[in-house]
Structures are given as structure tokens and as C-alpha cells.
């Protein structure tokens, strides 16, 4: 079965510092990969997605992610975090079902920002 692993449960970063959130997936073919962000008490907002082509994808709010097939990774990065980036971040893969997609989420990484 497909799976997504986010090894870091909680990360604290100083405001203005760079950020990298790790994500590894298990999938046989080329996956459809996503990063979602969830602020406390809120729904899921799509940050960025990868389907094919350029392995470095740009998203909203200054985030980017790089697909590395050799490492089965899709790490999320931001060069300079803002206090408003504090949230839960979920990496996800689309498990291509026979008739409809099914998104498999990682367990999430909670990001705290140190003033």
C-alpha cells in the first residue's frame, strides 16, 4: 500500500530563518504529490503540487518543493519563514485508484515560529 512519511512531528524555527520539512513516499509509479497546510481550527489549503515535468515546483506563500525520485522524497522549503507560517503541514500522495483518486496523507509536521 502507498504511504507517506513525515519524520518530524514538530519543528521550531526562528522567524526569518529558512525551513525544510521532510516527506518520503512509498509508491510504485510516478506519484502525484501535494503539500497542504492547516492552520488551527481551519481546513486544508493546498500549497503546491507535483504531477510531472520540472521537479522543483513553486507554490503559494513563497513555498517550494523538490521531487527527488532517487530518494522518494518531496521536501517542502521556504527561504525565510514568517510568524504566520505557524501551522500543521501535511504531505500527501494521490493513490491512483481504478476510478477515482484517493489522497493518502502523512501524519503531519507542526511548525512553530520562534520570535
Amino acid at each position: 500500500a502507498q504511504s507517506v512519511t513525515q519524520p518530524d512531528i514538530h519543528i521550531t524555527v526562528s522567524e526569518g530563518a529558512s525551513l525544510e520539512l521532510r516527506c518520503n513516499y512509498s509508491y510504485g509509479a510516478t506519484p502525484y504529490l501535494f503539500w497542504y497546510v492547516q492552520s488551527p481550527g481551519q481546513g486544508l489549503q493546498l500549497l503546491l503540487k507535483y504531477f510531472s515535468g520540472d521537479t522543483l515546483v513553486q507554490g503559494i506563500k513563497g513555498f517550494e518543493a523538490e521531487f527527488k525520485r532517487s530518494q522518494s522524497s518531496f521536501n517542502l522549503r521556504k527561504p525565510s519563514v514568517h510568524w504566520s507560517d505557524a501551522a500543521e503541514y501535511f504531505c500527501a500522495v494521490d493513490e491512483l485508484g481504478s476510478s477515482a483518486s484517493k489522497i493518502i496523507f502523512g501524519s503531519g509536521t507542526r511548525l512553530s515560529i520562534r520570535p
Partner: protein
Amino acid sequence: EPEVTQTPSHQVTQMGQEVILRCVPISNHLYFYWYRQILGQKVEFLVSFYNNEISEKSEIFDDQFSVERPDGSNFTLKIRSTKLEDSAMYFCASSEARTSTREQYFGPGTRLTVT
């Protein structure tokens, strides 16, 4: 920008009662989904729905659960006899016909509390 809406935002019910969670997907979308997130845990796939029938369901989606598209705009999740462990945030999502992007758009969620 079109969005998925869900009502109510918060539902409190007693154990054993039936609840119906409602969703209005994006109007030109054809695939509909329900996901669940128990507090502090990851988001889990429940069911996908296309052409008025279930496409796929997870092991969580047992006989207590049912989905319906009663008219051209609403998509509902019914829990027949709620249990304490059904307390969670329930997210509805929708996507266009099977395109290369397979992007799902999520609603803001309904928080279900079973007492």
C-alpha cells in the same frame, strides 16, 4: 474563486443519534470525497463517489456510514448511529473529471462532537 462549502461548521450529537453532514462541491466537479481527521491525528480517506455511486471506500467506512447526492448540488455523509469514536473533523472534497491534475479541493470541515 469557486469553493467547497460544508454545513454545519460544528455539530454536537449524543451517542446513538443519526447525523447528516452536508457539503456543496464545486459546481462543475464530478468526483466527491469525504475524509476524516480525529483530533491530533492525520487526515484519513473515507469514501469517493462518482456517477451516483461509491467508487472506493476505506475500512473505516462501515455500514454505519452512507453517502448520497440527493440533488444536483449537495453531497451528504450520514452516520446512522454515532459512537464516541466518530468525534472528528470531517472534510468534504471535490475534483473535476479525471484530468491529469487530479487536484482535490477541500471544504473547511465540519467538527463532529459525539457525547
